[in-house]
């Protein structure tokens, strides 16, 4: 299956609109920006640019959707309680179930996946008892069992990637 969001643009098209400074900002700061008094000023000094320029570039990259945000990435496990959950629902009713799940308090991701368990979401709460309560309430609402898959051990998390600029350019 291949489909695109109606309002999203082809990734290759997006990449062509980014110049060298944009690309350096994405490449260099996806792993972390300086947490200091004037972070954008510090970045500007490193890149030989100005604070205003860095800020307006970041705003534009965010508006284009190339950056989903500029800010802290929290460790869910340490900043509250959360777990990965899944339900198996009839494919024809999947979107209706998804709406119920998305509207439930604490749900912050929801992906359709190709499996009998076809809806996968992350449930969050301030603490463990509230997490259980939210899952129990949602289970009652949905009328199907929720597969509860808390993290028992985390081996590694790296959300940075080499961006294939040249390849996007050629496409």
């Amino acid at each position, binding site marked *: 299956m291949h489909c695109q969001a109606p309002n999203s643009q082809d990734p290759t098209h997006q990449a062509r609109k980014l110049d060298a400074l944009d690309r350096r900002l994405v490449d260099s700061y996806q792993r972390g920006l300086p947490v200091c008094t004037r972070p954008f000023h510090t970045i500007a000094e490193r890149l030989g640019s100005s604070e205003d320029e860095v800020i307006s570039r970041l705003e534009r990259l965010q508006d284009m959707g190339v950056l989903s945000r500029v800010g802290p990435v929290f460790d869910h496990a340490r900043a509250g309680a959360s777990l990965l959950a899944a339900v198996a629902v009839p494919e024809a009713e999947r979107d209706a179930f998804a709406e119920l799940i998305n509207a439930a308090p604490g749900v912050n991701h929801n992906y359709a996946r*190709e499996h009998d368990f076809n809806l996968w979401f992350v449930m969050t709460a301030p603490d463990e008892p509230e997490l259980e309560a939210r899952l129990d309430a949602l289970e009652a609402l949905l009328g199907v069992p929720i597969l509860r898959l808390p993290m028992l051990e985390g081996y590694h998390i790296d959300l940075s990637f080499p961006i294939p600029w040249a390849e996007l350019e050629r496409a």
Partner: protein
Amino acid sequence: MSVSTCPSRPAPRREAVEAAVPTPDAGGLDAADRAIVLATQAGLPLVPDPWGAVGREVGMSGAEVLERMQAMQESGVIRRVAAVPNHYRLGYVANGMTVWDVDDAQIDRLGREVAAIEGVSHCYRRPRHLPHWPYNLFAMLHGRSREEVERQAAVLRERLGEACRDHRILYSTRILKKTGLRLAGSRPSDASKDTQRRG
């Protein structure tokens, strides 16, 4: 749109912050930390002094916000403060959640090995739920095509060897909701905004 100029951005939910104070599960965050988490989880205001702007929202000085951000980073509550790319927009259009049924006696060693393989972003051990769910190791793979994800999965399969009884790749076909951490609850309006189809 930057956070600071978004008129519809709801104020932090103080009552939820109060309710969340501090439990052993909460990484030792106090109410002020939680207010900062709530005010920054959707992104920092893109202004010269973002800490001061956050401080005005939560009622503390910029210096205190910065100090608490640094402390949360130190303790691991904040993994990093970063320009977070939308990888889909940057060509990583295939996302496969691979799940593996791995010998419990070897899973910690193998989990660490698998986590180091290129293309793996998250790698976790999770409980089995027999008979419906025999898989105890999860590795998220990201590639520019399904073929690339298949190649990455083949590398994982080889590394796991005899210790692996079965595995599946669950491709995402659609993002129905994607938001950052929502400490105090969900914002239903995010669902429609963030709905996105995947190939």
